[in-house]
């Protein structure tokens, strides 16, 4: 199975100067667990902020999410994959870099996002299809 079949095209962005609280609000409203962080300037690259970052690095340390900027806990650079890459390859990348999300890029544009849950779901579908061509 290819990345294209499991990737999520619903991507939400946030500015690096926004507060972590803004990010939390956006994640709750949109029912998502990560946000892509826009580059600060032309030399900068996209970053990623996840629920995991917020819980472990802010909430668990009793820091105030209203006083911390997204840029302070953004992960960079992102691991990008092509949409025709196999999910086995994506799994290997996730294990190698100990990450739960990869970004799907095409001609230096972000096309989608693949989470570890998507990979699990995709591999289960692939297993169910085996021998049936479904």
């Amino acid at each position, binding site marked *: 199975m290819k990345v294209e079949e499991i990737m999520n095209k619903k991507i939400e962005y946030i500015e690096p100067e926004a507060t972590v609280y803004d990010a939390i609000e956006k994640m709750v409203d949109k*029912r998502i667990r990560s946000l892509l962080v826009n580059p600060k300037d032309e030399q900068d690259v996209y970053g990623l902020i996840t629920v995991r970052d917020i819980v472990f690095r802010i909430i668990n340390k009793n820091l105030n999410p209203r006083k911390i900027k997204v840029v302070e806990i953004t992960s960079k650079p992102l691991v990008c994959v092509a949409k025709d890459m196999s999910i086995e390859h994506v799994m290997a990348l996730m294990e190698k870099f100990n990450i739960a999300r990869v970004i799907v890029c095409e001609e230096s544009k972000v096309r989608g996002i693949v989470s570890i849950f998507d990979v699990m779901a995709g591999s289960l*579908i692939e297993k*169910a299809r085996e021998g049936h061509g479904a």
Partner: protein
Amino acid sequence: MVLKDLFLGGKKELEVIDKMKKHMGFLCSACTTLKAAIENRDKELISSVSDLEREGDIVRREIFSNIYEGAFLPFLRPNICRFVEIVDNALDVTKDAAIEYTDLELDEETKDDCARIADISAKMCEMLLAAIETLSGRADLREKSLAIRIYEKRVDEIEFDLIKRLRTKEIKNFWEGKALSDFIHDLTSISDLIEDASDYLQIINISLR
């Protein structure tokens, strides 16, 4: 020999299972055709969906006749009939969605989401067809059933965002809004019905143990 061989191995039973696969095949084709119609904005394909639904009706009647002529033990018949009825309902809503699409002009983003829903529904059909084949074999249905539930969840997610976005869209008149609302409702009901059918297949499978 297991119960399945006793209950599914007879000539009449195999005939019904073959017809159930044929019936499902019509649903798969209808979903694939609807997807192509939406994706390519090709409204000429809509009549093909109606034709497939009519063909499906014929096969459904044959299945019911075969069952009441003695195929399967009586305790299995209601669940098999219910399964066939649900698949037939899915074919009906696919046809309804296709007809409602006739007068709609979808914006690019909505068109992409609707084509994606139709595509996932087609994949769910293929998985359900594979599950019927599993029923007549010895393998477990659980994997297929889980895959269908994963697909259904994806449709739910797309539907949630789509409806949220459409609520902000300006509607020029009542009928335009109603047609769009009915279309989205029917399009997203296909996956719900396939999931229900998959649950019934699981019940049939369990009752054969």
